């Protein structure tokens, strides 16, 4: 499902892509920038939140700054016929932040299920990956954990 954005919605995205203005009445400030009424900004953002064009509104912590230095992309080779079951089991784990089915790129990339984990210590990260391995059991034919060694860019969506 997609939400069709009109020109005014798009102007709201542009006005907020760096974040909400940090003032007492932030939606009024967005309205001033876009050139519409505060009520219209709020009604539109309510709709965009309801339709899923906005995932959520709030704080995005820098997880490195909070001490989460071990951010691992765990990748699993799961047969296509088991992917729905595997995805459900892994997606239900409370420590997994993102869980996706993605295409393989054979021969050098047989992995089809991706799950992100975050830990403050290497040993904890290893144990989280181990817990995923346990819930997948025989559904996984092989896996890797790719830690990020450097953030090269992180800006979020830009229009």
């Amino acid at each position, binding site marked *: 499902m997609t939400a069709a954005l009109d020109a005014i919605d798009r102007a709201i995205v542009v006005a907020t892509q760096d*974040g909400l203005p940090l003032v007492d009445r932030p939606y009024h400030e967005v309205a001033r920038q876009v050139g519409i009424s505060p009520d219209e900004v709020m009604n539109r953002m309510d709709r*965009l939140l309801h339709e899923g064009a906005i995932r*959520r509104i*709030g704080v995005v*912590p820098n997880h490195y700054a909070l001490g989460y230095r071990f951010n691992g992309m765990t990748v699993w080779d799961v047969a296509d016929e088991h992917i729905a079951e595997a995805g459900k089991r892994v997606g239900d784990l409370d420590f997994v932040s993102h869980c996706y089915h993605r295409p393989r790129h054979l021969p050098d990339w047989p992995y089809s299920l991706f799950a992100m984990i975050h830990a403050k210590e290497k040993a904890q990260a290893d144990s989280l990956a181990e817990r995923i391995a346990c819930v997948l059991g025989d559904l996984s034919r092989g896996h890797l954990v790719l*830690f*990020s060694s450097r953030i090269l860019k992180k800006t979020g969506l830009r229009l």
Partner: protein
Amino acid sequence: MDEIDRAIINTLQGGFPICDQPFAAMAEPLGLTAAQLLARIIKLKADGIISRFGPMWHAERMGGELTLAAMKVPQERFDEVAGIVNSHPEVSQNYAREHALNMWFVVATEKPGRKAEVLAGIEAGTGIPVHDMPKIQEFFVGLRFEA
């Protein structure tokens, strides 16, 4: 960071209200005034503890495209290639990872069809094949980090 900062991070990772004075609404349960909450958020942002405060937009639900792409970059060209990849505004995140496929980046576009152009541009600009790994299905997104 003190206990109040931690409480702000732990309670404000979603659910920020859409109303006239949202900071006032969120400040009260934290035992703060709106002005105190704003001052703390401004400081947490300035200190790099939080990277953003506001709506998280969802490219695909906006009619755009989102994908994860990976490349095998020779070590001696790593910084040069990172520069080329990062120069595209559609690249929203880029990470070095420890694998033969050692560069992983997210491409978010506003209009359908643009993703293929960006990936082709990166291939042409670097001479390195790009593995496109768009999601087939999303099982879960939405972690709350405990501060």
